[in-house]
């Protein structure tokens, strides 16, 4: 498999009145063609900022990508001109947002919004575009596609809208789709339908997928590889199989022990991660996780650990090697 995306030392900072927020702090990872990457972390860990940075959609001010490279199909996206990056957005790389209700224009029909990316990026006649849109709507299982093309977003349910969003993301046959908490706002049964649909479609078109979520279960079900983020940094990077069998970073271990599992029979106490999520302006020194970490040693207070390989396909950023 060839490399589709490579992120090198990416840092995105927000310059706020209260201080500097290192929302994404020196992260590197790569993604192969057709692969599914899960980006897991809690709110404020920088997973969404990371995704927005890839498409250079960071609102400036207060945000700014301060360093790094995003190499996508052998081009560094961060040095492209505004026109060139527009040719990539929605075309080679598409994004599906969490809130379908607010991500769609309420006064435009679904059909028009679906056709928009193709009108921008493709030299096709209106007829061809329309045909492709109908085909896509059918693909995402929206019934009565021709009439639905002329409907407005408020006439759709949340699940249907998210289907339309997925169709919109796929209109130009992108090589990479970034789904930012694509199903968090939806009900469980609808969530399952949509994730399954996304998985099928990306598999069919050979599209790479980045799923951003806080749900460890979704990652276990759909991702090939996983990056775990905490306070703007990647703390653990592994294949999904290895991560769940052998979590090595104390944060990942804590996260897994703190989620109630549906298949857990005994009424067993959960083991939460103590303390509160970090204050991004006043991050703890050294390893940001150290105040909440039960494996902490002296070194964690002063030195920030970098990612290091612990075995094939498995990296952690931790001074202590926790073998579980």
């Amino acid at each position, binding site marked *: 498999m060839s490399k589709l995306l490579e992120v090198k030392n990416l840092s995105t900072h927000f310059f706020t009145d209260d201080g500097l927020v290192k929302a994404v702090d020196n992260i590197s990872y790569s993604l192969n063609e057709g692969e599914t990457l899960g980006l897991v972390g*809690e709110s404020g860990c920088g997973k969404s900022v990371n995704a927005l940075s890839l498409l250079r959609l960071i609102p400036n001010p207060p945000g700014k990508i301060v360093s790094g490279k995003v190499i996508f199909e052998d081009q560094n996206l961060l040095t492209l001109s505004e026109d060139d990056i527009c040719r990539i957005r929605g075309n080679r790389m598409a994004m599906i947002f969490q809130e379908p209700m607010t991500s769609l224009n309420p006064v435009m029909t679904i059909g028009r919004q679906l056709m928009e990316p193709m009108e921008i990026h493709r030299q096709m006649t209106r007829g061809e575009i329309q045909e492709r849109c109908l085909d896509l709507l059918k693909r995402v299982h929206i019934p009565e596609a021709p009439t639905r093309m002329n409907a407005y977003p408020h006439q759709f349910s949340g699940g249907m809208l998210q289907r339309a969003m997925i169709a919109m993301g796929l209109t130009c046959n992108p090589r990479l789709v970034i789904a930012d908490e694509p199903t968090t706002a939806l009900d469980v049964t609808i969530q399952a*339908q949509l994730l399954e649909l996304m998985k099928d479609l990306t598999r069919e078109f050979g599209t790479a997928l980045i799923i951003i979520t806080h749900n460890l279960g979704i990652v*276990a079900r759909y991702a090939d590889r996983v990056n775990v983020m905490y306070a703007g940094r990647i703390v653990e990077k592994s294949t999904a199989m290895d991560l769940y069998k052998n979590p090595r970073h104390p944060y990942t271990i804590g*996260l897994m022990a703190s989620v*109630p*599992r*549906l298949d857990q029979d005994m009424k067993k106490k959960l083991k939460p*991660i103590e303390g509160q999520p970090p204050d991004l302006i006043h991050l703890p020194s050294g390893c940001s996780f150290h105040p909440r970490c039960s494996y902490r040693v002296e070194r964690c207070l002063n030195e920030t650990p970098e990612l290091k390989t612990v075995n094939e396909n498995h990296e952690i950023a931790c001074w202590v090697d926790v073998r579980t």
Partner: protein
Amino acid sequence: MSEHNNNILLTVNNLTLYFPVFKGIIFKKKIGEVKAVDGVSFSIASGETLGLVGESGCGKTSTGRAILQMDHPTSGEVIFEGADITKLNKYELRHLRKKMQLIFQDPFGSLDPRMTVRDIIGEPLLIHKLNGSKAEYREQIDHLMETVGLNPRMVDRYPHEFSGGQRQRIGIARALSVRPSLIICDEPVSALDVSIQAQIINLLEELQEKFNLTYLFIAHDLAVVRHISDRIAVMYLGEIVEFADRKDLYHSPQHPYTQALIAAVPIPDPLIEAERKHVLLSGEVPSPLNPPAGCKFHTRCPYVHDLCRKKTPQLNQVSDRGHRVACHLSAKAPDRNNP
């Protein structure tokens, strides 16, 4: 839960809550009703946790509100500590509020932003005149803060200075202040971060043990509900479709909806996930304004047949452990279980 059976705290009998729907601006015409809760019955023993699970719009929150009399039930009985509380007047009801408390979903919206933590936690005490002398009042609040794991030194701060998890603790302290016997937890952890959810769940469990609390735990996350509940009721479009203890519900779900719900929840383990069958429901939840005839689930049910479209199934007992299911098929095809 058989040992509790003679110690029933709350019984809900055939509870319904309908909201009329009007059309027109000047001449309002009633065009229908949303049957938010449609004939729900269950009882909770003292010290027990009953989980109420379902998707948005299934009526689980409305059930909680109808029990608390925040929305007056259209019909049915709510028997709390032996008395039907649907017939109480405004003043008797206010008095009752100290025995039934509510924990909210939204830790940001449920605390008045212009009140200090002391005022928030102390408000129910003041309302019910349980505050005592000034020193006693202070002491009570300090004690409550310690009970929920907050530092009493932060008592004069405002809610916005706290994180989500801490705010939820403040909400819990407020509910505990009047020493209620029943607490209705409406999605108490769904707005919190994963690592914080476990803290709050553990806290709720500890408090239950310490104060012999009874919980009605309303949530959409089946894994959380299964973790904390003794028995679970699954709701769909205003009705309970399955009622079972936590073990039976997972190992032998009888209703096709419960099965789909269980299958839809991913388990954080790729090995198990690879082996699980992913049963997908087709379609979406129908509008509660115009629910399907017969079994309300028939439009999405993979096993639907003619009878389901015509006749509404009753909630029938299927095992001696109190497992009840509302499905025409459950009696006929007992082998069709385990997703």
